[in-house]
């Protein structure tokens, strides 16, 4: 720990302000094509951060986070198309609906642990995907277009979309930092590290997990809605694609699970790799998988873990120094 608490908080606050301003002015200087790429980068980062929050902060590993990406997108498309509402105003509703969905399945999936929990969410994602694929009113396999934004000014849509995506990425960094340092963040860490001890100090383990699961679901849902809003079309095979899981895992594992910074590095590496290896198809996916295997074998804390270990540099340290053990 090289900086004391209050001054670190101030540094983070300054960083947040700088990022906020930088993001706010970006659309003035960036072409629409690059704006679209940035929307994708920010939303994919938000996906990864929702999984990182779940696995690294709540201690729940899921293989079905694509469930919420797809659900968020479909909730948004269906309500916007049905009532002709500007989709941007629907994002809070998407958060609530995805959170409610998570809350509804949590009591059942929480009965399973570890990998069985992880796969049970994947099963739910498959149920929803197969259901939508058969339902003609939901566009079946060919999916749904987003009608309302068609008649709107393209630049306005792109810029609004950018601001939403940037806001999600901002929350993914500074919101997570803020949350992890609140009381609930400490409760989450306690539950993640040792259920028994957490229960012994009076933390309600079940409700703490429940909160984390619902929050991660809602956040991923909004990110999913934002992503598909920017491409104006959603179909079940893409929205509920388990490959979303591959991308999230890669970003978080390579970067470092349970850290705020790790997934930033992970996202950068992911998009660089994708740019270099575009056109190689499966080779590129194989590489993502192999990278995850190697990381688990040699540095299970990811690249960011190596950085903090070597340089003791942890600007967003969310872990408080632990009191000396007896």
């Amino acid at each position: 720990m090289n900086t004391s608490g209050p001054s670190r908080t101030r540094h983070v606050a300054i960083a947040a302000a700088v990022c906020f301003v930088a993001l706010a002015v970006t659309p003035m200087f960036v072409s629409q094509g690059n704006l679209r790429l940035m929307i994708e980068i920010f939303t994919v980062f938000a996906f990864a951060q929702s999984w990182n929050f779940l696995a690294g902060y709540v201690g729940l590993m899921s293989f079905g986070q694509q469930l919420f990406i797809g659900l968020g997108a479909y909730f948004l498309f269906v309500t916007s198309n049905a009532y002709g509402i500007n989709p941007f105003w629907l994002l809070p509703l998407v958060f609530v609906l995805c959170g409610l969905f998570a809350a509804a399945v949590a009591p059942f999936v929480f009965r399973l642990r570890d990998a069985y929990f992880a796969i049970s969410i994947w099963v739910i994602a498959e149920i929803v995907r197969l259901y939508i694929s058969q339902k003609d009113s939901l566009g079946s396999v060919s999916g749904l277009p987003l009608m309302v934004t068609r008649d709107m000014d393209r630049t306005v849509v792109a810029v609004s979309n950018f601001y939403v995506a940037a806001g999600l990425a901002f929350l993914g960094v500074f919101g997570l930092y803020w949350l992890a340092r609140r009381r609930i963040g400490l409760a989450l860490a306690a539950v993640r590290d040792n259920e028994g001890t957490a229960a012994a100090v009076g933390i309600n383990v079940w409700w703490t997990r429940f909160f984390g699961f619902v929050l991660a679901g809602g956040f991923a849902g909004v990110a999913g809605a934002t992503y598909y809003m920017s491409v104006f079309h959603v179909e079940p095979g893409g929205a509920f694609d388990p490959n979303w899981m591959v991308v999230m895992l890669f970003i978080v594992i390579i970067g470092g699970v349970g850290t705020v910074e790790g997934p930033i590095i992970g996202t950068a590496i992911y998009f660089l790799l994708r740019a270099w290896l575009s056109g190689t198809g499966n080779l590129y996916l194989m590489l993502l998988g192999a990278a995850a295997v190697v990381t688990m074998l040699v540095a299970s804390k990811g690249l960011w873990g190596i950085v903090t270990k070597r340089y003791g540099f942890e600007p967003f340290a969310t872990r408080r120094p632990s009191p000396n053990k007896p």
Partner: protein
Amino acid sequence: MIWLETIANGILLGGLYALIGLGLGFAFGVMRVVNVAQGDFIVAAAFIGLYLYPWTPLHPILVIVPVALIAFGIGILLQRVLINRVLGHDQIPQILLTFGLAIVLRNGMVSWFGANSQSINVGNMRFWGFDFLGMRLGVLPVLVLVIAIMLFAALRFWLNTSRMGRIIRATADDHQVVQLLGVNYRNVYAIAMGIALALSAVAGVLLAMRGSFTPYSGADRLLIAFEVVVIGGLGSFWGMFIGGIVLGVTQLVALKLDPAGGLMYGHIVFFIILILSPKGLSSILTIKAFRK
């Protein structure tokens, strides 16, 4: 009558599903390891079977023997080279490691073999059938069920009576104490993973004979295996068999009612069972007084 035949066929398919789950459940029971790559190993075994069966003497169905042996060796290597290195109290590293492995395997198979649908040809046997209680049943599905039951029984018998089986059961109970008795639990784990993959490989080849597969089938296979194990009550031996049959019957009945449903109804039945009982079907079937 047509429904009775559907249910009978569901039971035949369910036996095979149970066998898919057996490998996963056995590995979990012994090591508390969940091999997320199991589904893709099942598909890989089917590809090995596809390339070996033309050279198999006597009958193509016997290709399960060399494939099982190869899978056994791969399982030992997998455990020794990779999984044993990340064992520990924390399950996340091994789960993520096998997930990464699954991605590598799946996409490796796509680039090697292409994404086309394949099937292992067992010749005329595919069309043989016989009448039983007024139902028309296929010879191959019945044979597959018999193989599945035999493997379940053989594994149970071997675990109960052999020296290695005893050591495996002891290691499953307490992998630390066996070390005090001179047993290297990592070797035991390697053998257990070999057995788990060999069982899964047999299931994969038999599935490829009954139907078709693509390099992407691994995800569905894993989900089936996982559902079989959870319905069966996490590691309960014959519970898994019941779990497989529940899924098999559900799938074929649903296919009759809604041909486009695919695996959806199987997933839904699994979820309903999860809602009704946290410990799976075996705890619904067990009378409370008999439980400890």
